[in-house]
């Protein structure tokens, strides 16, 4: 920005207004959940809880269904993330570097999954799984959650591989490095951080994936978000939900810390076609 706009310093009223508004709208509800999680007693007219404490943390962590759901979520997320990495990363490299017939057509077939309303797609898939007897099974949920991660794991790594300077790879090849060696020593270190972010995002995305798990898995396969829905709908003790929310949030916070890199570099927004 040049001097004409910066020359007149004045209090940033708009900025202050936005920050206050956003703080109320975004931070306040989360603060309330946080407070609930640490409230032993909080009855109606009081603005703050009558008694703070960790009682419901112990109570929630003593529940078998909570641990089962957490374990199921982790198993599902790890399986889905590994599968999508194994399937997508070579494909992403191929899309970024190699030229083959129908390349663009194939690439856009990946986008097709996101050009339809996702839940409708899930219902259509579920109808097929119904005939294959995959409803209510672990692998049925894995397959349906794979739909969500495929695009992520193709799109972000492709731009990561494309960002690697081709000349460096060629230089390495000129001095006699084998293709695998080039990939390992030149390409991967440069594309690595972005790919790690993609893997992390797909792990977290799967962890929070609710629709597919609910449609295919429930009631037999209960992931943490699915358990959370039943807590919201049927659980009279408010604090259980609050504590579970806080636990549920941990992967997201980790993702937040790592994803700043990707968002900051603008690759993320580009991936969304902005």
């Amino acid at each position, binding site marked *: 920005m040049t001097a004409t706009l910066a020359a007149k310093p004045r209090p940033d009223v708009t900025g202050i207004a936005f920050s206050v508004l956003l703080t109320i709208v975004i931070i306040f509800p989360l603060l309330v*959940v946080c407070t*609930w999680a640490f409230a032993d007693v909080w009855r109606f007219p009081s603005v703050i809880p009558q008694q703070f404490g960790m009682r419901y943390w112990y109570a929630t962590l003593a529940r078998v269904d909570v641990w089962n759901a957490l374990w199921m979520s982790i198993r599902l997320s790890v399986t889905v993330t590994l599968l999508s990495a194994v399937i997508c990363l070579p494909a992403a490299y191929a899309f970024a570097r190699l030229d083959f017939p129908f390349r663009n057509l194939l690439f856009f077939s990946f986008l097709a999954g*996101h050009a*339809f*309303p996702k839940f409708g797609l899930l219902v259509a898939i*579920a109808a097929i799984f119904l005939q294959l007897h995959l409803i209510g099974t672990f692998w049925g949920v894995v397959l349906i959650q794979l739909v969500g991660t495929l695009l992520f794991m193709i799109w972000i790594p492709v731009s990561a591989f494309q960002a690697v300077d081709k000349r460096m790879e060629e230089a390495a090849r000129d001095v006699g490095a084998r293709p695998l060696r080039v990939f390992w020593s030149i390409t991967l270190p440069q594309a690595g951080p972005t790919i790690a972010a993609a893997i992390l995002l797909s792990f977290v995305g799967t962890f929070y994936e609710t629709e597919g798990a609910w449609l295919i898995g429930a009631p037999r396969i209960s992931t943490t978000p699915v358990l959370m*829905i039943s807590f*919201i709908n049927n659980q009279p003790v408010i604090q259980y939900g609050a504590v579970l929310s806080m636990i549920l949030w941990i992967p997201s916070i980790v993702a937040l810390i790592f994803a700043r890199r990707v968002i900051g570099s*603008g690759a993320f927004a*580009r991936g969304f076609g902005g």
Partner: protein
Amino acid sequence: MPVLLVVWLVIWPIASAIIGTLWLKTDSGYAFSIRTYQFFFSDQYSINNLLLTLWTTAVVAVLLLAFCLPVALYLRFARGRLGAYVQALAIFPMFVPSIILSYAFIRVLGPNGALDLLLNAVHLPKIRTPYLTPWGPVIGLLWDNIPLTVLILVSGLGSVSNASVEAARDVGAGRLAVLWYIILPRLGNTLLVALSFTVLGIFSAFTLPYVLGPAAPEMLGPFMQRTFKDLNDPLNAITQAVVAFAFCLFFGLFYVRSVAKNRPGR
């Protein structure tokens, strides 16, 4: 291999959904029929659900733009710590899963929620809670969609050069004139991208309308789920899905086209 998986998990389900709802099993084998669609569009309950979805989409889209455009404009020209703070806050909801959001919503705006507590403390009447009304999903979806819309708009505003804004100011254009004549004409495409995302997102929203919305009429997401699972009627559930596809077709195509145009290195 990944292509096969996509074909199996994306293209085949859509094709089989469309074909499966049009060629129905009759006594003498399969025949072309639009019976399920006739049922959908003659059933008042289905129509109400569709209308509710369209209404929610329209309201959320308008409110979202009304809220995010000023924020994005501010972020485009803001410098310093306050700008960074606003940006961080605007993107933050991306890292709050919608299930936690629904829970927070109930605790704040639900009956005897935090807002009621605060109002009660200053001796004001309680609010009429939007929980379990059509406004519940609207507020939730709005909250959920802020980060993406702001990101898309900011990235679109990046293509408006400082020079053109300053040139307009030099010849005496006011803020509104700059917005109307310089910025908005260049933002058309970005606005459509943001709109496509919102529409696609809302048509497929499930968690928020399911937890926060009214039981009847319901939005298409919960409606499909209930038809599929509770009524055990996959055929009509798929019909509803195809109807949703049809309504989103324009925005889906637009999304693919704009991504195709923006692909780096093409």
